């Protein structure tokens, strides 16, 4: 009961942020310097075309009215219509979202698989050689552009070793699963320097805390102290680190879809950009923000299960 109340309360707390997000996305079109209609339709657009554009976007009405219309369409799940495809933006997004979600799943799994062991190896022997080497990873890794990491993986694992497909999404589920390995790995490589550093720091805090000292002084073998006592408590910082970096993970995926020619939301966004298809860019931006807000919410809910210290009242 109290957990349901907690989740409901968290949902309510999301409302101001969600409203803010819609306001920002709504105002994107008003950031266009000069007349948006002219900017989109070009200098040779006829007056009737400009009028039609203004009408379509409600630009001939006052700002609050425009925002209200935008919001009421949004509540009904209407993100507008794509100029280019002449299809509802929601339809386009639904067609592409699977690919992006699969990429995010791969990236998350790979990030955990890289981060947790390395952070653990570093933290269990502070200031040893292995710790120093692992602490050196962020120095080099943080400066690597995600898309460049992707190209380097294409070059080495794809073209030279021919281990993985170098681009595309393939046909059928098995192809999809296989073609996502390199993109997922790329995003994980790009984000791991940040997650390793944060998780190492959290692990150090845990390994130096009283309950670990107690466990050791009771004569429990070190392997068990770290494997059972410390690891259980490291789950929470691991979730925190992942959720704090979800923005980078999603952002990295958007760019990586371009590198590997994957038909996901990122690609849809860039198509929108190059077709000057405003509704599409707006819609995808909004969907990404909603995705991240939901991840934050999910993180809090997971905390409430994993960490008994989270108070539900």
């Amino acid at each position, binding site marked *: 009961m109290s957990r349901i109340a907690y989740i409901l309360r968290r949902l309510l707390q999301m409302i101001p942020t969600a409203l803010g997000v819609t306001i920002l996305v709504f105002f*994107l079109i008003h950031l266009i310097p000069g007349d948006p209609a002219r900017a989109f339709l070009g200098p040779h657009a006829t007056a009737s075309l400009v009028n039609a554009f203004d009408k379509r976007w409600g630009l001939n009405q006052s700002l609050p009215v425009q925002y209200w219309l935008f919001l009421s369409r949004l509540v009904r799940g209407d993100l507008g219509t794509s100029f280019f495809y002449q299809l509802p933006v929601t339809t386009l997004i639904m067609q592409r979202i699977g690919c992006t979600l699969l990429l995010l799943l791969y990236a998350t799994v790979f990030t955990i698989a890289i981060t947790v062991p390395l952070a653990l190896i570093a933290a269990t022997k502070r200031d040893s050689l292995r710790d120093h080497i692992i602490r050196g990873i962020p120095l080099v890794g943080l400066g690597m552009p995600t898309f*460049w990491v992707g190209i380097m993986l294409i070059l080495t694992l794809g073209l030279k070793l021919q281990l993985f497909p170098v681009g595309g999404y393939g046909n059928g589920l098995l192809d999809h699963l296989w073609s996502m390995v390199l993109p997922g790995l790329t995003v994980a490589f790009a984000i791991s320097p940040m997650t390793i550093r944060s998780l190492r720091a959290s692990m150090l805090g845990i390994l130096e805390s009283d309950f670990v000292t107690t466990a050791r002084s009771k004569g429990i073998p070190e392997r068990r102290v770290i494997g059972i006592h410390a690891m259980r408590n490291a789950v929470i910082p691991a979730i925190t680190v992942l959720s704090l970096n979800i923005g980078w993970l999603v952002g990295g995926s958007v760019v990586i879809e371009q590198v590997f020619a994957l038909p996901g939301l990122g690609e849809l966004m860039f198509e929108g950009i190059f077709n000057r298809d405003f509704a599409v860019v707006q819609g995808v931006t909004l969907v990404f923000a909603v995705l991240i807000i939901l991840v934050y919410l999910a993180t809090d809910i997971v905390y409430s299960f994993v960490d008994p210290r989270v108070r539900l009242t």
Partner: protein
Amino acid sequence: MTQAVRASAPTLGEETRAIAVRPWYRIPTLVIGLGLAVAIAGLALLAPVLTPYNPTMQNLNQILLPPSSAHLLGTDQLGKDVWAELLYGARVDLQIAFIAMLLPLVLGTTFGLLSGYFGGVVDAVVMRAVEVIVAFPVYVLIIAFVFVLGPGATSIYIAITLVSWVSYARISRGEMLVAKTQEYVLAARSAGLSNVRIIGRHILPNTVTQSIVFATSDVVLNLLMIVTLGYLGLGIPPPSPDWGRMIYQGQSFLTTNWQLSTIPGVAVVIVGLALSLIGDGLADLLRRE
């Protein structure tokens, strides 16, 4: 020398001693980082001396040449000298990455300090704005901003400012919440100093260090953003050379001329390394524990 300082000043507080013990040139990360940064800046500034080629000049008789004594890093698909493009590209990209850090630093620090100091409505407004920006993936928001503003350096400055002030605001607010309860601030308040004077003259110098340390990694983030935009075709428009666009154009020749995409990426990594080292070193220097 250090020992002497320590011995002769036993009454110095912990803070002062920490600084006296480690002057900046005794922090290896800082020295190596600064050395690298000076070298990189030198290469960019001396570009006209270091290469006889014009980075925008095409020579279709000499395309896709491998590295040689005439063309240190070879030529690209339009016969442009890659070493020249790299050096001149550094001028463009690094300058924008650095300048784009300044306004967010000032704005974010100001908002964060005010938010932490006054609390209440100011805090609520600033923190809601931060939450909204943080709800977007950074890349997506910047790409969307650059899209609506049109390509070019000005758009990049505006987009980065709109997004990256939040990091500084969060850092400064946190620092302010700690500083606010400390005795020197309480003393300044009870002495009847104005809020402007307390924040500007007393708190700012004590809280700004964290923001400055972050600023070094922020320049790296800006550089990554700029080359990413360049790669995606939304960056500095040609003919101005840009590392991101170099990587993009090289991608078509990966099987035959892999160095075209690899080299500019390595350049970004080296710049990132230099700035990360400086950041770590500064954090060491300014740590007061």
